[in-house]
């Protein structure tokens, strides 16, 4: 059984339907990419999983448990954490405070300290900057903090929303390297990206979302070879 499973999800913003029967699964140990153009419903999919909005139809199960109508703070406690689109750091708190907020749902002080150590080895830059206010960091550093903050919850599944958005190519490479590293430590990742080349390269499996519907799915490398995907998203 898949760790995270979406079945026939419909989601609305007021009366506008954003998702039409979206179904997808994320298994233990996987990187699953969700690609698609602007407005395809990628972020909406993540929002329904994290409980920031609730699906009008369909079910979301995590580890065999229905979380379709679970409030966001409960979803985090269950072990799904995300680095939201546009980083959304707490700008006027220090990096350290941001990381501690990431561990808000946890009470095990020792475990939190371990997570902090892990995050600091993963991102030495974040450690250097830990006493600085988050709002004063560069875009790449902020993205690193956003991912670190999500990791501080010790997630059983990590969701990353557009981690490469607005970053210089060199930094994008670093970020994707780290995504791989996090995954190889055993954390399954649901990755939402516009940068299809990078996403398909790193993902085990991928889904293509178009105007709220999944139009294609398969192993990342396979999708990268598919003609439609190449035309629409890879610019080949």
């Amino acid at each position: 059984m898949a760790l995270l499973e979406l079945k026939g999800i419909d989601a609305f913003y007021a009366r506008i339907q954003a998702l039409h029967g979206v179904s997808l699964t994320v298994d233990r140990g996987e990187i699953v990419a969700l690609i698609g153009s602007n407005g395809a419903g990628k972020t909406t999919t993540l929002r329904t999983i994290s409980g920031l909005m609730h699906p009008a139809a369909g079910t979301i199960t995590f580890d065999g448990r229905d979380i379709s109508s679970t409030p966001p703070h409960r979803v985090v406690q269950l072990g799904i954490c995300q680095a939201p689109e546009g980083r959304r750091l707490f700008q006027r708190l220090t990096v350290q405070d941001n990381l501690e907020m990431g561990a808000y749902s946890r009470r095990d002080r020792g475990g939190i300290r371990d997570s902090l150590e892990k995050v600091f080895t993963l991102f030495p830059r974040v450690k250097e900057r830990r006493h600085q206010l988050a709002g004063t960091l560069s875009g790449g550093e902020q993205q690193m903090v956003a991912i670190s903050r999500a990791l501080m919850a010790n997630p059983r599944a990590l969701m990353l929303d557009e981690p490469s958005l607005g970053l210089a190519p060199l930094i994008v490479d670093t970020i994707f390297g780290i995504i791989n590293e996090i995954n190889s430590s055993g954390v399954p990742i649901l990755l939402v990206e516009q940068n299809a080349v990078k996403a398909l390269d790193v993902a085990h499996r991928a889904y293509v979302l178009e105007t709220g519907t999944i139009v294609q799915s398969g192993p990342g490398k396979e999708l990268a070879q598919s003609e439609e995907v190449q035309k629409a998203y890879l610019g080949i």
Partner: protein
Amino acid sequence: MSSATVARPRPGPRRGRIRIGRFTLNLRDRDTVIYLALAIGALAFPTVADFVTGGAGGSIVLLAADAGVYVLLALGLNVVVGFAGLLDLGYAAFFAIGAYTYALMASGALFHTPLHHAIHIPFWLLLVVGVMIAATAGALLGAPTLRLRGDYLAIVTLGFGEIVPRVFRNAGDWTGGINGLSALDNPVLPYWVDGPWAGVGEQFGIVKDLIFSVANPTAWYVLMLILVGISVVMLNNLRKSRLGRAWMAIREDETAAQAMGINTVSTKLLAFAMGAATSGFAGCFYGAKLSLVSPENFQFQVSITILVMIVLGGMGSMPGVIVGSLTVYLILFKILPDAPNQVHSLLATTGFTAIDQPTGDWPGLGEFVSRLKFLLFGLILVTTMLLRPGGLIPSRAEIDVERAAKETSALGLEGAQG
């Protein structure tokens, strides 16, 4: 010679620290220094006031006790506005609830209501009761409204701020209507403090001055200091707690806070309740000291004045809020009301009485100044905010963000990524 005058750093890793038992004061910490200065100033104030006025400092000390009410209110609203970032325009409502709680439960007022029974609960107990009732009111208002964000929340709180005094005014059977309630009980020290062993009436009696009446401003002043002290310690601990950091996370980015697993509704509710609780404290003191509450004392203007104190002092910075509320209080209730008389006497002593005489449209300079009071107040506010946009004593975050912005623009790095 030159080498001898070079200041050498004293040895030891703990320079600038004073240890008192378990507590360490770090004199290099800005906030510690400000708190220390405020505490010393507050303790010395009655003596200094007496000395400067030649033994007639009573009225000033009484005024200072009133200023303390505003300090409490500002500290409480700072939790809501400064920590949690929720704009509350009806804060005076909770102040009113605290004051009316005291008025009803510590006077003969309830005898004239359908209840026909006067209740006289001691002040000290009512402090706790008032806090709990105000906090409950905060939670009750918060529950349906805190799902709103930003401007919408401000409008709802504005409405609440109008409704509460109006209810007190119109429920005349219970609250005395427009006349309010008067002849409220004064606080009395419990017998185990106040008994013969306390040395009342004797020269060296510790608490001989702690009899709460209009004739004894020092008693009120000391009580106020204690209340402010308790509130500062409690709120400061709260600020540093898990809850305090959750408030700040919500202030910075509510959606991100939610995504981090913070239950934003209950966390915001707690901010509202804590803010309201502090104003319940202030309300009880206010009712007891004035021995009178009336709906006129809790108008919209009160809410706005408290908000001005916070913004002027530095939103989210507790020392800033204290200094801000004292400053605004001094300007609003001492300097500006006294200004016309000062002008009168100045003109009289310098011999320019002519421009103080009303002629035609000219009301005379003294009267003119008195008419311009609020224009002057506005000018002071605008100037202060232009000179110190983060407030008189900005919170640390504010300072760092400003500094970073300056550095980035100086290096031409604005908008640089990666």
